[in-house]
């Protein structure tokens, strides 16, 4: 579905709607929006073929700011609505913008099932680990003990690990990026766009008002010490090449490159599910660096392709439907 069509090249401006953006000043969402508007023209696709669907939450205001077709729906239901859009017209490039509450709490069921079906949607989950629009309650990705208005004595829930949930749901594309890593964010969106099937990108996004600095260690001065950028086919090094990750049995260990060579390190293979499962568990790990990049990507027939194929095959086999004939099928009799 990515074939190029000849038309005047578009620019970022074409994707900016006339609606005033209403996120809090300094919100991480601005960076993601700007990057999306900048990225879309590079895909070489007509603007009218993009659809942005969202649920409810701060991030879900996103479609209003994109000058494409858009649908700001109800809490948690962006994924099935987007599934309906894609099934009705599979030639569209359908993007879902959702948050940690929208996708993993109220919409958790849809998250599992949309991914397992391999519905060809691009899912951007803005994870700020807090409920922003309802003014600061803990979310399903908040750390244990979170002090919020709804948990003045500390939250008791253990958090979900979004990439692990996605992998457990048979997702065919799982990636993570960070709002402030702009070019990385752009490259993940591009990979998602070109992936045929459900693409899931978790975007760490800072909420300045209710959960500021949640990702400070991945975006601040020593970010390179705390983040590992996964690259397919390459050994896992980080901290400017001074540290690496080595497998000890099934257990990943951080090693110093003073003591080991690149050949000793774990090599990233984004098509290896076992490895992806291991990597997904590095989320918020006390010792291991936070993995970003494409954790897992494989090709598998998409749900929407197969829906169309069943229709084509049936028509090939028995011909196009004849309603008159269908109405008159079974035992009929004539009353004179």
């Amino acid at each position, binding site marked *: 579905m990515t074939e190029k069509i000849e038309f005047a090249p578009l620019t970022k401006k074409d994707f900016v709607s006339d609606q005033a953006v209403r996120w809090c000043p300094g919100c991480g969402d601005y960076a993601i929006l700007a990057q999306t508007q900048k990225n879309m023209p590079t895909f070489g696709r007509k603007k009218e073929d993009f659809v942005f669907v969202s649920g409810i939450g701060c991030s879900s205001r996103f479609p209003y700011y994109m000058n494409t077709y858009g649908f700001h729906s*109800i809490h948690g239901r962006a994924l099935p609505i987007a599934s*309906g859009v894609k099934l009705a017209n599979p030639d569209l490039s359908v993007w879902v913008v959702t948050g940690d509450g929208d996708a993993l709490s109220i919409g958790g069921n849809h998250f599992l099932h949309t991914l397992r079906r391999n519905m060809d949607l691009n899912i951007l989950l803005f994870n700020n680990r807090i409920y922003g629009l309802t003014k600061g309650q803990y979310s399903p990705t908040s750390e244990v003990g979170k002090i919020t208005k709804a948990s003045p004595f500390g939250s008791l829930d253990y958090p979900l690990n979004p990439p692990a949930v996605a992998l457990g749901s048979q997702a065919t594309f799982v990636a993570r990026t960070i709002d402030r890593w702009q070019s990385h964010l752009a490259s993940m969106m591009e990979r998602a766009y070109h992936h045929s099937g459900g693409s899931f990108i978790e975007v760490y996004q800072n909420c300045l008002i209710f959960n500021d600095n949640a990702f400070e260690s991945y975006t601040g001065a020593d970010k390179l010490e705390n983040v590992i950028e996964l690259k397919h086919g390459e050994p896992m090094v980080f901290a400017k090449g001074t540290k690496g990750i080595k497998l000890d049995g099934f257990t990943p260990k951080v090693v110093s490159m003073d003591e080991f060579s690149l050949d000793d390190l774990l090599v990233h293979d984004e098509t290896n599910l076992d490895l992806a499962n291991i990597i997904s568990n590095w989320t918020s790990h006390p010792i291991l660096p936070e993995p970003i990049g494409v954790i897992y990507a494989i090709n598998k027939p998409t749900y929407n392709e197969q829906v169309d194929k069943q229709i084509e095959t*049936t028509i090939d086999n028995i011909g196009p439907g004849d309603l008159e004939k*269908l109405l008159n099928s079974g035992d009929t*009799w004539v009353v004179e």
Partner: protein
Amino acid sequence: MPKTTKTLDLAVIRFAGDSGDGMQLTGGRFTDTAAVVGNDISTLPDYPAEIRAPAGSLAGVSAFQIQFSSKEIHTPGDTPGVLVAMNPAALKVHLPELIRGGTIIVNADAFSKKNLTFAGFETNPLEDGSLDDEYIVYSVEMNKMVTHACKGMDLPAKIVLRTRNLFALGILYWMYDRPLEPTENWLETKFAKKPEIAEANKRALNAGYNYGNTAEIFTTRYKIEKATLPSGTYRNINGNYATALGVLAAAEKANLKVFYGGYPITPASDILHAMSSWKQFGVKTFQAEDEIAGIASTIGAAFAGNFAVTATSGPGVALKSEALGLAIITELPLLIINVQRGGPSTGLPTKTEQSDLLQAMYGRNGEAPMPIIAAATPGDCFFAAYEAARVALKYMTPVFLLTDGYLANGSEPWKIPSLDKLPDIETNLIDALPDGEESFLSYQRDAETFGRPWAIPSVAGLEHRIGGLEKKDGSGNVCYEPDNHHQMTVIRQEKVNKVVQEIAPTRIIGETSGDLLILSWGGASGTARSATEQLQEEGFAVSHVNLRWINPLPSDLKDILKQFKKVLIPEINNGQLIKIIRAEYLIDAVGYNVVRGKPLRASLLIEKAKEWLG
């Protein structure tokens, strides 16, 4: 002994047996034969929610009632005159509804001590004489008969015994002078890959027929002539299939593809099954992860330009309510079908009820009105679905179609409509910026219908955003202005009100004025019609009106109601339409409300009506 033949106008028979006895199949065959013979028919399948309750238990009894007649009929009949009971439990459950003097045909071989105890009989009713005074009992050793009929076929006994429902059917075919060929042909097709099974069943069927013919105990057979129906080609149809066909016909006529998103739920699942078999029509079906995803996917498909449909039952509607509000505020065309069942909560999943009318009217947050149409008979489900689709697409609104378990599974002869005679369907699709507009106004309305333009993704220049936040009238942008919200609230109601211009003049059965008007809706229509006809025959000044559209109500209803001294509203609920009628017209209507999970009985409605007729 000579056999006599009596001619009757109508008969009501009921097949009852264990869930595994094939009673629905038997009833279905009898129905198809009655249809082919040319009788008017009306059926009532009545089966348990449990797939296979323990064999021989009261909970596991499955039944199928059919009324067939040489005259026009409107219900499956109040009480059967013939009961086929394949085991003691079936006799126990259904005997109370058999008319006095009725006929009972039992499989005597199933009346073992164990089965009798299981069914709560202390003594065998076939032997203790308890039935003899009031009923005509034919006790037939069906197990023995089919075993004999299938002798030499080298089939396991279990398989042979399974044919005893066809043996019972054969007896009934003899009693009512029916041909065996339609059933034999059906068996041959059904068991094309297992010819020995087809053969065994055919032998059982013929053995039953011949038993009726030769056994000394049967002395009378009955003849029910062809009914005089309007000319045309007919088929037998049930409500769920008719609904699905109506959806497909509407889509063809509107030149749109059907998208059906739903979640399995009794008694609506057969609509999903029919839809998913129609790939050759390009129908896309999506069995979603839950009811909410079912409707959410249809909303997405509607946004993207499909004719989007979902069907469910009451509990599913409850789950879909928030999304219905979204469909209302985004003003997308959508058909939602509620095949009503007994409630509340899980209630009676396989039984019928009319208790979701107020849910359809008011069961959403905010002021969220929707047009509501209700089908009156199984075959009418086709036309009601078609009409609902037409209004949804013309007015850009979700529309509720209410059917119920009785209509869904019940069947009747259906005159197959000719497609070119169905009304045209208009849509609001646009493919370019309307003249005079500089930027696209997604909520600029048609003056006649208040429908907004349907601009679907992939159309250049009409990119726009919709959603659940309040809209600015005209532009469709998010708008929190107080006056705009008031205006939009009024517009959304006004749009539903405008549907009144689609409603044909109300048909009154009987005189246009009188002592009593029986006002019905949905599946109670048949009972109301039968009761009215009988009261009229008895000389009472009674008329009947069935409401097809309930929201909005027809514009002529107010004047019609005024012409009657009393209005009686029969419903299978605690009184829902009556609340709407009282509120709308300030009249002192009275209700007839029985909530047993079964169609209302005409005889009891007549009694109720007579209370008001003096």
